[in-house]
């Protein structure tokens, strides 16, 4: 039988509940399908054939915030978009994480002006920042793995 033979007939595996839950959270983290600007194109590349984010349990990008765990803010956030972004964040069920992709989302990037929110952390809490303009898909994947490492350290009561 599939799993039993793979486990070598070990019978029972004991694990801390916290570890098991965190592990499952990292293995099927669904990002929200939500692109803002240039960085979104690199996010699509990371999803597509050559980089294939589904290797990390992310084959499903959910267009609806209510079905997603991870918000990848890919691109510059303008003053006009900021309330929308915050609303989307509020609509996501907990536990939820935010990854700020690119210089613009992290700190305003090269656009220090009236139109751009100087870092998306002004409006939503950010867990991982990925630098680059735009970051390469490898960098995004590295950011996501960093986030996974972080999630593995989380305590269950962080989210209650």
């Amino acid at each position, binding site marked *: 039988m599939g799993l039993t033979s793979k486990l070598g007939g070990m019978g029972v595996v004991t694990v801390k509940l916290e570890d098991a839950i965190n592990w499952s959270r990292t293995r099927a983290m669904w990002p929200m399908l939500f692109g803002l600007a*240039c960085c979104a194109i690199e996010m699509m590349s990371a999803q597509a054939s050559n980089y294939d984010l589904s290797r990390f349990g992310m084959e499903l990008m959910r267009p609806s915030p209510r079905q997603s765990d991870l918000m990848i803010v890919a691109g*510059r956030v303008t003053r006009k978009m900021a309330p929308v972004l915050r609303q989307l964040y509020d609509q996501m069920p907990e536990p939820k994480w935010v990854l700020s992709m690119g210089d613009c989302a992290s700190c305003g990037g090269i656009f220090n002006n009236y139109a751009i929110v100087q870092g998306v952390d002004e409006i939503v809490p950010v867990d991982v920042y990925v630098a680059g303009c735009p970051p390469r898909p490898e960098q995004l994947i590295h950011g996501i793995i960093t986030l996974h490492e972080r999630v593995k350290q989380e305590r269950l009561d962080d989210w209650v």
Partner: protein
Amino acid sequence: MTVSEITTWQGDVEQLKGLVSERALSGETMVLNMGPQHPSTHGVLRLLLELDGENIISCVPDVGFLHTGIEKNMEAKRYEQAITMTDRMDYLSPMGNNLVYCLAMEKLIDLDVPLRAQYIRVLLAELTRINSHLVWLATHALDIGAMSVFLYCFREREKLLDIFEIVSGQRMMSTYFRPGGLWRDVPEEFEPAVRDFLDYFPGKIDDYENLLTSNPLWLDRTQGIGFLSADDAIRLGCSGPTLRGSGVNWDIRKAIPYSSYDHFDFEVPLGQHGDVYDRYIVRMKELRQSLHIVRQALDNLPGGPVRSNNRKYVPPPRSELGQSMEAVIHHFKLWTEGFRPPEGEVYVRVESPRGELGCFLASDGSPKPWRVHFRTPTFVHLSALPHMAKDHLIADLVGIIGSIDIVLGDCDR
């Protein structure tokens, strides 16, 4: 500014007067909001739709969710620094944006560009067009439901990005074109990489066409949808494949050749019916024409320098710095202060993958541009969208948006 201070439009029906029909105000038809977070609006486009059942009565685009203030920011940068800003406007064709801005600067200061640089510019601009059309095809097909095309297109696109990385060190935001030529000559690996691509890609276009061109589902979803007559297309200011899909022969590369496009032999594909399908066909044919131009440019690539020798505007090569005091002075002046073009105004246009991309540049004689303005195709095409979407089903709207190939960064800047 905190979140609570930022307010959005709260939905006062009175404000909708004139935008939607009277029937919407009485509640007979439904007003539906689409976007700005919607998977098939290609970014952050918001549409206000008035629906009668599933039929679109009117459609009001709301743009500006990606307004970045690029034009204003460019005024605070020196001419050459500002090139980095242009990359980020239409992020699917960064080299096209670099090109139009560099051409504007060159026209303003009457700067010569060596032939080799012009050819490499054409070559890279055409590769950028292929790159942009690949993303268009990927997302357009994905919107209509053909997932595999998306994966194939992005696979091919990586090859192009590798080429851009070879020349400029960056995958997308290359900033490779500079006033008077290019940042540096192309490295050795460039030619074999482009030749590889030229051999590899035509078969892939056939693959896409096999998947889509005569696929009955694709035909059903695209033929007769989003009709735009030639007169309307001209009246609404359309350009590029959107205009040519309606059968109007207007391509700036042919009509007002720039950057030595007149040295190349290529055709301008035209559609007949002006629907989503014809715009698709036009772009697919453009892919082949672009390859044809790239091949010619590579075969006939002249030798020589890739940057002008006008030391007032173009920094001397590194090798000269050790030998000539004058070169050191030029270098120092250009990198600390920048150059001062004469006072004046210019307007230059190029054929970007989406249509006519224009750049208006005004100088007051200082090292920073006084005003830069871009005439971008997506903005104009979005104003034609209500006309195309009228009386269609809401499901078709997705295909129509895809067929005009919008990039919101291009629209909002």
